[in-house]
């Protein structure tokens, strides 16, 4: 188990710098938004929290296909499936590794990027909090999508298509927490719902992912 986690982290760091690239993509999205919508800071402040959430969602998404595809191609997944580790555990570990290399850096970096987008002062806490609660769900849901598309060559776009609708509830509640926080409103209800979704996804989806993976490995 620990061996799998360390290997995945090591691979992420060595093969094209896992940590850095998710962040870099996030940065680029944040930088491009003002070019797209124009530089008025009032407008930017209004959409800042939403863009931060969208940016981290897309950054997560782009790194999903790494979760299983490489292991599938070189046959490691076949071996892992017959190894004396329950597949559910292996899937959870993979999701954890994805979160550590993608989700966590995004949470840490969000305040900095918030500054670039003129995020209003009281918004920082809720944005970070909502990302901290929400990104684990993104990783777990993404792992399910990656398991679904594992046999398909360059399934990247298909993966996005399958996963993004599943991201909708997380995004809605997460962005709602962030937006209400920025407007200095009470955000306890959406935060509870967000936490609920995260816990539910973490508790249940690994079983679905493992089942899907078993089918794909047949």
């Amino acid at each position: 188990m620990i061996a799998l986690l360390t290997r995945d982290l090591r691979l992420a760091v060595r093969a094209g710098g896992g940590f850095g690239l998710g962040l870099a993509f996030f940065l680029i999205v944040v930088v491009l938004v003002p070019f797209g919508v124009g530089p008025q800071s009032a407008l930017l402040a209004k959409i800042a929290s939403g863009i931060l959430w969208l940016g981290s969602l897309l950054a997560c998404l782009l790194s999903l296909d790494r979760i299983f595809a490489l292991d599938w191609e070189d046959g490691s997944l076949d071996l892992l499936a017959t190894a004396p580790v329950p597949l559910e555990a292996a899937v959870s570990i993979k999701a954890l590794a994805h979160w550590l290399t993608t989700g966590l850096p995004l949470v840490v970096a969000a305040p900095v990027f918030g500054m670039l987008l003129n995020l209003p002062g009281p918004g920082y806490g809720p944005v970070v909090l909502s990302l901290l609660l929400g990104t684990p769900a993104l990783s777990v849901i993404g792992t399910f999508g990656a398991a679904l598309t594992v046999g398909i060559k360059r399934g990247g776009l298909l993966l996005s298509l399958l996963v993004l609708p599943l991201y909708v509830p997380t995004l809605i509640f997460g962005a709602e927490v962030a937006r209400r926080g920025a407007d200095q409103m009470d955000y306890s209800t959406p935060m509870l719902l967000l936490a609920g979704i995260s816990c539910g996804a973490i508790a249940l989806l690994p079983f679905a992912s493992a089942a899907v993976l078993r089918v794909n490995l047949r």
Partner: protein
Amino acid sequence: MELTVTDLAVARGGVPVLEGVSFTVMAGEALVLRGPNGCGKTTLLRTVAGLQPALAGQIGLEREAMAYAGHSDGIKAVLSVRENLQFWADVFATGSIEPALEAFDLNGLKDRPAGSLSAGQKRRLGLARMVVTGRPVWVLDEPTVSLDVSAVEMFAGAVRTHLRGGGLALMATHIDLGLDEARVLDVRPFKAKAPALDDFDGAFL
């Protein structure tokens, strides 16, 4: 320990490929499958190793007893040879990788990233992985592809050690493995016959 396969039928892409395959491999024995290209050796091995479901028949051992090595070796190019092996040793909880490095003469290469190995060196690493799994049944698909003469001897030596330790091995190949004592099974007689046409049921055939 013995591996008994009875009346096995295997399919690929929904098409039955082999049927009525039965054989027994005792501990300490190696069985080599032979047959022309496309006759279904790979499919049979994957089924026995538990990587795909059988159409019919029984496989005497559960898949936790098997270690499978096919055409792709599960090697990570960015990890070193030692890290690659150590990972599998940890997953299978078998401890030391020294014997495996020894058996395939990988000590000189152990700190090289696996991606920079030549075809034959990669293959040796892939086979060394079999040793660290500690599993009693080795299922090997064309194991000596790309190996030179001395590496084929290393392979034969490793298999003999495995057999002496009470293991057993099932292999498919077109070329000589250097294992003269191994029993050979030609799979051609088991070729699946086309089923009757009007037997149109759940399997669409």
